[in-house]
């Protein structure tokens, strides 16, 4: 699933390795977190976080 996201080469989207319990982002750094495509086989949640510029 991660590979599918990477292959889309979405502009202004960076794919990072992480875990729902250790997200590679600094404190208070993102406006929103959307959790989607939680794997059926994996136990831990995957996550996607995007920095929005307002």
């Amino acid at each position, binding site marked *: 699933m991660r590979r599918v996201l990477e292959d889309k080469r979405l502009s202004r989207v960076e794919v990072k390795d992480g875990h*729902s*319990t*250790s*997200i590679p*982002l*600094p*404190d*208070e*750094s*993102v*406006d*929103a*977190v*959307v*959790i*989607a495509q*939680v794997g*059926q*086989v994996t*136990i*831990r*949640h995957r*996550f996607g*976080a995007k920095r929005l510029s307002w």
Partner: protein
Amino acid sequence: MESLRELHRVLRPHGCLGMIWNVEDYNQRQDHKASTTWEQTMQDYIWTQDDEQPRFRHQKWKQVFDEQIRSGPLALIVGSEPLFSLPLAMHEDPWTVFLPKDKVWDRLATLSQIAILEGEERELVHRKFLGAVASEDTQKNERGELAIHGGTIAAWTSKIPASGATKLWEKQA
């Protein structure tokens, strides 16, 4: 709960947390009534094969949000602010997709309860599926493809900053 704390950490004050699931009827929570007989049959079967790994259908994700404000006697003394605001906002968009029968089976077989089966065991479930889709209420399109019913479910909430009350007050001032 550990994940909630981590999400709370990276979010700006009053930042939003959204969750999205695509859930077919056959993969729904136990009290959900499937749209057709075959989908109900497969939903029931999947529940009988439960491996106790938390998934959407177990609704444990929701319990976590309720537990964040479950206060014990000590909470009155130490104060326990919840991390995210409640109640959660929820929205469900139902959808129907049509697929040829073998593709419906392929999709169903990606569920780990079926994916782990081999040989005769897998064949038994396949036959159960074929019997179930032969039910009268199975919906088909003009190409003979079967309807799969499901929904895109979204839930969202916002972060309550540790000193949320003060910051809101400062905003107004």
